[in-house]
C-alpha cells in the first residue's frame, strides 16, 4: 500500500520500476511579468474551453482562479508596500490613501459563472481579499465610503505589483488521487498526477480532497479537469506548453531535484540583493503534502497570492482512521461475541 504521508519519491512508491527522474515546475514569481502567455499556451495545447468574457476588476486578473477551464492562472496583487530596495514609487506626489484593499474586496464580488463546479474559489471573501492586497498593515475595510475620502489615513507612497502564475501542485501525496474510486487519477512515471478523461465518471470526490482547491469539475461534461503537466509532451521529451511559452523563464520545467537546487540559489541571490521577503513555497519534502512537484518562489506570505499557508494532504489521517475503524470493528465484534458467548445456555 502507498504511503500517505512524509517524504518519498512518488513514482517508485506507485510501483514503477526504474522510473525517469521526477519532473516538475519551479515558478519564480520574482521575474513573472504577468503576460499570461502560460494561460494561453496551456489552453491552446490542451484544448481547454474558454470562459466568460467578464471583467473581474481584480487588477489585471480576469481569469479569477484555477478551474476546470483554466489550468494556469496568473494572479495580480497590487499592494501599498515597499518593493525590495526600490525608491518608493510615489514619494513626493500628491497621493491620498490606498485603494488597493477596497478595489480587491470589490473585485471578489464580480465572480461570474466559469462553467465549472465549484469554479472560482469559494473561499474568497471581501475581507480576505482586502487583507491580501493591503500587505502586513491592513487597517480594516474602508467600507462604502468613496476612495480618497477617508480622513486621517496615511498617504500611499509605496507600490508593489505582484504577479504569480499558479498551477496544480502535483503533490507527493495527492489526496485527489487517493480518493479517486475509478482510477481515473493516476501517478505517472514522472511523478506527476493526471486525470484520464475517458475513465473519470464525474463523482467529484477529488474536488474537496485537494488542499489547494485546484481540481474542478466542468459542468458541460461533469468530469474533473486540471493541469496534466503536459503528460503528452513530456513523454516525448518536450517542455510543457506553459514553460515553453514563458518569455522570462519565470516558469521553469525540469527534474525536481535540479529545480530545488536552482531555487535555493535563487533565493540566496535575491536575499543578497535586498529582496528579503523572497521565500520558497511547496519545495519542502517534509511539508504537509510531502513537497510539491510544482513549487514556487514567492515575494510575500502565501495567503497574499491566495495559497494556503500550510497545506496538509486531506488523506493523511486515513491510516489512523482505518486503524481506529478497525479497532472499533473488532471491539464491536468482541462485544457481539461476548454477548453471544455470555448468554446463559
Amino acid at each position, binding site marked *: 500500500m502507498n504511503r500517505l504521508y512524509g517524504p518519498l519519491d512518488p513514482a517508485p512508491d506507485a510501483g514503477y520500476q526504474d522510473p525517469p527522474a521526477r519532473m516538475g515546475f519551479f515558478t519564480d514569481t520574482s521575474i513573472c511579468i504577468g503576460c499570461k502567455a502560460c494561460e494561453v499556451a496551456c489552453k491552446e495545447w490542451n484544448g481547454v474551453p474558454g470562459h466568460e468574457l467578464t471583467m473581474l476588476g481584480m487588477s489585471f486578473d480576469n481569469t479569477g482562479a484555477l478551474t476546470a477551464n483554466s489550468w494556469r492562472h496568473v494572479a495580480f496583487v497590487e499592494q501599498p508596500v515597499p518593493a525590495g530596495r526600490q525608491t518608493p514609487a510615489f514619494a513626493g506626489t500628491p497621493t491620498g490613501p490606498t*485603494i488597493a484593499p477596497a478595489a480587491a474586496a470589490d473585485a471578489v464580488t464580480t465572480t461570474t459563472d466559469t462553467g465549472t463546479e465549484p469554479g472560482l474559489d469559494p473561499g474568497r471573501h471581501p475581507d480576505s481579499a482586502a487583507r491580501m492586497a493591503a500587505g502586513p498593515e491592513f487597517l480594516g475595510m474602508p467600507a462604502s465610503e468613496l476612495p480618497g475620502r477617508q480622513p486621517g489615513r496615511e498617504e500611499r507612497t509605496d507600490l508593489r505589483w505582484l504577479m504569480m502564475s499558479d498551477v496544480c501542485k502535483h503533490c507527493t501525496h495527492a489526496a485527489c488521487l487517493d480518493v479517486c474510486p475509478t482510477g481515473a487519477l493516476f501517478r505517472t512515471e514522472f511523478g506527476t498526477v493526471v486525470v484520464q478523461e475517458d475513465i473519470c465518471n464525474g463523482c467529484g470526490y477529488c474536488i474537496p480532497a485537494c488542499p489547494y482547491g485546484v481540481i474542478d469539475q466542468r459542468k458541460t461534461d461533469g468530469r474533473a479537469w486540471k493541469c496534466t503537466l503536459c503528460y503528452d509532451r513530456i513523454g516525448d521529451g518536450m517542455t510543457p506548453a506553459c514553460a515553453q511559452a514563458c518569455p522570462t523563464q519565470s516558469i521553469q520545467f525540469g527534474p525536481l531535484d535540479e529545480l530545488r537546487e536552482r531555487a535555493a540559489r535563487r533565493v540566496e541571490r535575491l536575499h543578497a540583493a535586498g529582496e528579503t521577503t523572497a521565500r520558497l513555497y511547496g519545495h519542502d519534502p517534509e511539508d504537509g503534502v510531502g513537497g510539491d512537484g510544482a513549487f514556487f518562489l514567492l515575494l510575500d506570505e502565501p495567503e497574499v497570492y491566495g495559497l494556503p499557508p500550510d497545506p496538509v494532504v486531506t488523506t493523511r489521517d486515513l491510516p489512523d482512521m482505518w486503524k481506529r475503524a478497525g479497532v472499533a470493528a473488532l471491539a464491536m465484534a468482541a462485544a457481539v461475541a461476548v454477548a453471544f458467548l455470555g448468554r446463559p445456555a
Partner: protein
Amino acid sequence: MAEAHPVGFQWVMEAKERGAKVIHVDPRFTRTSALADLYVPIRAGTDIAFLGGIVRHILENELDFREYVVAYTNAATIVSEEFRDTEDLDGLFSGYDPTTGTYNPESWQYAGQEHDGVRFDTSTERETAGGLQHESHGHPVQGRPERDETLRHPRCVYQILKRHYARYTPEMVERTCGIPADKFEEVARAWTENSGRERTSALIYSVGWTQHTVGVQYIRTGAIIQLLLGNMGRPGGGILALRGHASIQGSTDVPTLFNLLPGYLPMPLVKHTTFTEWVESIRHPEQKGFWNNARAYSASLLKAYWGDAARPDNDFCYDYLPRMTGDHGTYRQVLDMIDGKVKGYFLLGQNPAVGSAHGKLQRLGMANLDWLVVRDLFMIESATFWKNSPEIETGEIVPEECRTEVFFLPAASHVEKEGTFTQTQRLLQWREKALDPPGDCRSELWFFYHLGRVIRQKLAGSTLSRDRAILDLAWDYPTHGRDDEPSAEAVLFEINGYEVATRRPLSAFTQLRDDGSTVGGCWIYCGVYADGVNQAARRKPGREQSWVAPEWGWSWPANRRILYNRASADPEGRPWSERKAYTRWDPDKGEWTGPDVPDFEKTKPPSYRPPADATGVEALSGIDPFIMQGDGKGWLYVPSGLIDGPMPTHYEPAESPVRNPLHGQQANPTRRTYRRPANPTNPSPPEPHSDVFPYVFSVSRLTEHHTAGGMSRTVKYLAELQPEMFVEVSPELAAERGLVHLDYAHVVTSRAAIEARVLVTDRLTPLWVEDRVIHQIWLPYHWGGEGLATGDSANDLFGITLDPNVLIQESKVGTCDIRPGRRPVGKALLDYVADYRRRAGLTGDHRTPILTTDAVEREKP
C-alpha cells in the same frame, strides 16, 4: 516594454539578473515598472524637459566623455553668429515665419555657411515629411566648418548647448514633469555613472516617444545624451526603437510611406523634372560620405522596376515615377476622402477605424469612397464601418446610403507565407511557411503579383502612353504551388541586386552602378543574397560563433550589427577600454578589425586627413566615425534637416492643462495642423477655457491585446484575458469625480465621448505641476465594435495634430474630462459633445493660436 514587448523583455530581466539597474519612466505604473529598480512617474508630454535636465546635469558637472565628444561629435563646431536660441526668443529659434509656421534655417548653419546658396524650403519639407529620408543619412555639410577643440568659443556647439539647457534644473524638471527633484537626480546619477570608457548604457523607446508633436525631438534629446556620454557606436550602447509590431523597420527600409522609395531614397517632387535633377537633390555633389553614390542606387532601383525598358538614354524610365505635389500622408488622405478627392483605397493589415487618431474622421472618410479593399485575417471595423460603427448609432452614416463598395479579402497569416522580418537592429530574418493558408486566404505577395498580372493582361495591346508605366514593368516572378504563389526568394534576390549581363548577385552596395548594368531593389539591403545564398535564412547557433553572432540572419548595411562602430575605438584606433573593445585599427595589417564588420573603410588609417578639395567618401577623415553624416560627426546640434529647430526644446503638447513653464511659446510652433470644424483642438493656456478639459489622458497597449485588436479581440483565448474596455484612474481622481471601481465612466474631448468600465488603481498617481495637482488617466486603445470583446475606441478621443518632421500624430497625450456613468447614445451623443465644444469656446470660426509669444515682434528694431 514588459507590456507591449514581453518577449524582448526577457533580455532586460536577464540583464537585471546580472546586476543591471532597470529604470522605467512612464505616466503610469505598468508591468515594466513592477519589475524595474526605479519607477519614475512623469506627466505625459514632458520628456524633453526631463531629458533636457539630464543634458544639463551632464554639462554643468562636466560628466561628458570629453575625448569622445571632442573627436566624434560636432561639439567643437562654430555656429553662425546670426543664430538666436529659444532662450533669447521666448521659445522660438531665429528665422520663424508666422505666416507659414515654419523656419528659415539659414541662421542655424555653421559659421560661414549661412548664405552658401543652399535654398531651404522648409514648408515643402514639412508637407512631404522630408525628414524621413534622414533615417539613413544626415543633411549635407559644405566645406570644412570652423572648430574650437577647447570647447570655449561662445558660439561652439558645446557652449550653445550648455546655455540652451541651463534652465532645465532639477527644480524646473519637478515643476514641469511632476518628478520630485531627488528622484530625477537618482536617474541622472545612474545614467552618467554607467557611461564612459568602461561602461555603456542603452536607451530604449517606443511609440510613447514618437507619437507627439515633438516626437522627433524627443529622440534627438536621447541622442544628445548618448553622444555626450559616449554611448553611440559602442557595444551595450545605442538608442533602440521598439516597433509597434513585426517588421515595422522593414516597412520603412522598403517603405509603405508616401514620401520614400526603397533605401530612404526620397520620392521625387513635381519640380524634379529629370532623373539628374532628382538625383542631384539627393546626393548634393559636394557632399562627403557614402550618400554621394545616390545616382547608382537610384538607377539600379529603376532598373529593378522597369527592367530592360529602363536605359540610360531614357533616364531609366524616371518619368514613370509618380511625383509628389505636397502632403499625401495618411491623415491628409483621410481628409481628402471626406472632401471627395480620394476615390479608392487599399487597407492591408491595418485597422484605422480603431487604430488611427480621430476615429470618426477615419470612418467618415472611408464611408465616402467609391471602393475600398480590405485584406485582413478577421472581419475588422475598417471593413464594417458602413453597418457597424458609432456613426450608425448617431445617424452620421446610413448603411443604405453609404456609397463605398467594400471588398473584403481574407489574408494569409505570417505562418502561412514566407518572407523576411526586419527588426529593430536592422536584422533581416527569413521566415518559412509552416502550412498553406486556408480557403481563399492569400499572401500580400500573391495578391499584388496577381493583381498586377491581371491589370497588365487587361491593358495588353494598349497604345496609350499612360499605360506604359504598367506595361513596361519587369513583372516576371516565378510562381509555384497550388495557388501560384510567387517566389519570395526571387523578390529578395531582386532587392539584393544583380549584374544584368550575368544575373550574378551583388555582394555589396559599392558594386551598384549608374550605367544600367546593375539592378538593385533596395541599396541598403545589397548583400542579403550575396553569393546566391539567402543570408537572412542563416541560423547558426550563438554558441558556434563569436558573441556578435554575425552568421545569424543578416543586417543592413553589409551585415553590420552595430552602426558607426568606428566610435568604439579612440581617435588612434585603440579600444576605449578592453572591457568595451569592439572595432580596432590593426597597424600591422593596416586595417580595421573586430568581431563585427567595421563601419569604416577597411584600410583608411586613423591618421588619414583628406585633401582640401576632396568630396564623397574620400572627404571623411580617419577620425570621422559617423560616416553617413555630412561631416562625419555625431550631431549634438542639427544645423539643417529638422523643421522645428537645431536643438530640442520643451514645448507643451498641443493639448495641455498648464502653461509652458519654460517659454511664452506654448506648443511646437511648427506642428502640422489641419484646420477644419470636425478637427478641433481642446483649448490650452494661454487660451481661455482649458478648465473644460482639466485632465491629461494617454493611451497605450495591454499585453493581452494587439494594436487595434483585429488579431486578439477576435480570438477567444485572448479576448477573455481582457474582455472589456476600461479606463484606469487614481483613487484621488476617483474621489474628485465620484468614480466607482468597476462602474461605468465616460471620457470626453472636443471630438468624442467614449465609455468604459472604471479600474480605480494605486498604479496611477496625481502629480504636482507648477503648484497644481494634475490628474492623468489611462486607456487601452484596443477596442472597437467587431470581434468577441467589443467596446468604444480610445483613439476616437484624439484630434489630428502632427509632428512637423515626419507627420506622425500626437496620440499619446491629450486633455479630457471624465464623468461617472455611461455616455449618451444616438443623436444625444452629438449634442453632448457639441455642448462641451460650446463651453470650451470651440465654435464658429475659432482658431487655435499657434504663436503664443510676441518675442519676435519685440526683437524687431
